C-alpha cells in the first residue's frame, strides 16, 4: 500500500486534495505549514506533518523538507499537491529530489500498478492518460476534480513535526504584494455562469453582462482575450484550457466564438446557452440553446425579461 501525502500552498485546497487522497486508499498524511492540524483531520487526514512556518521563506523552499519526510517513511508513495502555480513548482522540484514521475493538472487519479492520472493535452483537444512508474509519484490535482469529504470536526489523528531542511540554492523574495485586478472568485464552483467573449466591444459594456448575471444570480466568466489580451476581467474568471474548467448547471456564452480551447473549459456545464451574431460560430455546435443575434440587443432584452 502506497503512502499518501498531500500538500497545498493554499489552505482552501486541502479538502479536495484529502478527498483525492482518500480515493487512493490507505493512510493519508497531510503536510501543513504551521500548527493548524484540525482542519486537515476534519477532512480526512490520518496524520498531519507540521512544517515550521516562517514568513520569509518561499513555499518552494520546503521541497527538501517534504522530500526528507517522504523518503523517511518509505516507498511506494504518492504526493498529491494542489495544481496551483506554486504547487507545480514544488511538484517538479520534488520530482527531481525524489526521482519521481510528475503529472500536472490531473483531472482524475487512480491507484494500482503505478498511479495513473489524466490531464488535458493538445489545447484541450484530447485527454492524456499517464502512469507513473517510479516508486514515488507526484501529482498536482486540478481544482474541482474531487468533491471534498463531509467535514467532521470530531476526527483526530497523529501530529508530527518536521525540521526545516534548507534548500541548496535559494531565491530571495524582495517583495510580495497583492495582485491587482485579481479576485478570489472561484467560478470552478459556481452553479451559474454568464460568460463574455470577444463580442464585447468596450470594457464599459461589461455592465450589461453583469446585469444579466445578477438577474440570473450567476457569476461572470470570460474567454481568454477578455482576461489576458484586454485585461478587462480578472484572470480567475477566464474559462478555458489554461484557465478554469467549470462544472456549472448553466453556462451562458455571450459573444464567444467557441474555439475548442474555450469549450474545454465550458463543456463541463450541464446546459449551455449561446448568443453570437455569427451563425457559423462553433459555439452553436456545443450549445443546447443558441440565439443568432447581436449581444448588444439581446443581452439587455434578456435581463429585462428575466427581471419581470
Amino acid at each position, binding site marked *: 500500500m502506497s503512502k499518501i501525502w498531500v500538500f497545498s500552498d*493554499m489552505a482552501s485546497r486541502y479538502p479536495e486534495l484529502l478527498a483525492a487522497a482518500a480515493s487512493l486508499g490507505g493512510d493519508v498524511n497531510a503536510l501543513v505549514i504551521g500548527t493548524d492540524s484540525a482542519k486537515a483531520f476534519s477532512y480526512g487526514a490520518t496524520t498531519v506533518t507540521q512544517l515550521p512556518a516562517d514568513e520569509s521563506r*518561499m513555499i518552494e523552499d520546503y521541497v527538501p523538507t517534504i522530500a526528507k519526510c517522504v523518503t523517511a517513511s518509505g516507498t511506494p508513495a504518492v504526493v498529491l499537491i494542489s495544481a*496551483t*502555480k506554486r504547487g*507545480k*513548482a514544488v*511538484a*517538479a*522540484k520534488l*520530482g*527531481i*529530489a525524489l*526521482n*519521481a*514521475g*510528475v503529472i*500536472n493538472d490531473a483531472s482524475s487519479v487512480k491507484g494500482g500498478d503505478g498511479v*495513473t492520472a489524466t490531464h488535458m*493535452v*493538445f489545447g484541450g*483537444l*484530447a*485527454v*492524456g*492518460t*499517464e*502512469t507513473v*512508474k*517510479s516508486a514515488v509519484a507526484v501529482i498536482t490535482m486540478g481544482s474541482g476534480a474531487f468533491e471534498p469529504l463531509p467535514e467532521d470536526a470530531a476526527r483526530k489523528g497523529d501530529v508530527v513535526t518536521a525540521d526545516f531542511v534548507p534548500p541548496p*540554492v*535559494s*531565491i*530571495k*523574495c*524582495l517583495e*510580495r*504584494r497583492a*495582485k491587482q485586478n485579481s479576485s478570489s472568485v472561484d467560478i470552478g464552483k459556481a452553479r*451559474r455562469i454568464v460568460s463574455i467573449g470577444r463580442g464585447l466591444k468596450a470594457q464599459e459594456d461589461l455592465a450589461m453582462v453583469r446585469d444579466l448575471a445578477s438577474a440570473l444570480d450567476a457569476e461572470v466568466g470570460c474567454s481568454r482575450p477578455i482576461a*489576458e489580451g484586454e485585461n478587462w476581467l480578472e484572470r480567475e474568471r477566464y474559462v478555458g484550457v*489554461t484557465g478554469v474548467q467549470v462544472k456549472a*448547471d*448553466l453556462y*451562458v456564452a455571450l459573444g464567444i466564438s467557441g474555439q475548442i480551447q474555450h469549450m474545454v473549459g465550458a463543456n463541463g456545464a*450541464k446546459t449551455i446557452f449561446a448568443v453570437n451574431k455569427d*451563425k457559423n460560430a462553433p459555439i*452553436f*455546435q*456545443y*450549445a*443546447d*440553446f*443558441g*440565439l*443568432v*443575434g447581436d449581444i448588444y440587443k*439581446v443581452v439587455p*432584452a*434578456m435581463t429585462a*425579461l428575466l427581471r419581470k
Partner: protein
Amino acid sequence: MNIVACFKLVPEEQDIIVNGDRTLNLEKATPKISLYDLNAVEAATELAAAMPDSKVSALSVGGKILENSKARKDILSRGPDALYAVIDPALESALPRETAAALAAAVGKIGSYDLIICGEGSGDLYAQQVGLLLGSLLSVPVINEVSKITAGDGKVTVERTLETEVEVLEVPLPAVVCVTADINTPKIPSMKAILAAGKKPITVWSVTDIGASTGGAPVVMQSILAPAQADRKKVIVEGDSDDKVAAFVESLRKVL
C-alpha cells in the same frame, strides 16, 4: 549576457484530425513552434537587446520534426543568433523528465550560460514541468510564472505572478526561468529577419553527442484520446427579434 531560449516544435493543432476511435491523427499536422515558447524566445531577445554583447541561443530537443528546415528558419527569424537541436529517435515523444535531461546535457555541451528561459508549457502535452526540471537537474535557481525580467549584475530581478499575489524575486545567475504567456507579445518576424534566418548557424547533435542518458522514464503515456463529445440539444434560433429573445429566455427559465 548568454541566454538560452528553449522551445519545442509541436503539431499545428488545426491540422490534427480526431479519428473515429477518438485517437488523434497527427500525420497531416505541420510542425510549428509551440505558442508559449514564442514568449520565451521573445523574452530572451528583448533581454539581449537591453544588454550589450548578449547572445541568444535557441535550443530544442526532439525527434525528426526538428529536421524541418522551415521551422528552423522560423525560430531563427524570431531573434535568436544560433540554433542548437538535439535530434534523436530516443527523444521522439519524450515526456518532461527525458526532455529536461537532454536539455541539461545539451546546455552542458553548448558551454557557459547565464540564463535559460522556457515557456510555461508546450502546446501539445502542456506538462508545465520541463523548465523546472531542467533547473533542478542543473542545480541552479529555477522559478516558474515569471511575468517580467530585469537584468542586473550577476542576477536577474523577476516578477512572478501567482493566483492572487505578485512576488518580486532576486535570482542569482546562472538560473532557469519559466515565463508566462503574458510576459510579452511576441513580435511577428519581419521580412528582413526571415531572409536573414537562413544565414544563422545551426548545430545538430544526437543524444550520444551530448552524452545524455535515456531510458528509465518515470512516467509513461498510456493513451491520448479526444473526450467524448457532450450530447447537446443544439436548438439554434436565427434572429434577435423580441419574440425570439422571449422564447430564448423561456428556455432559460426552464433550467433555472
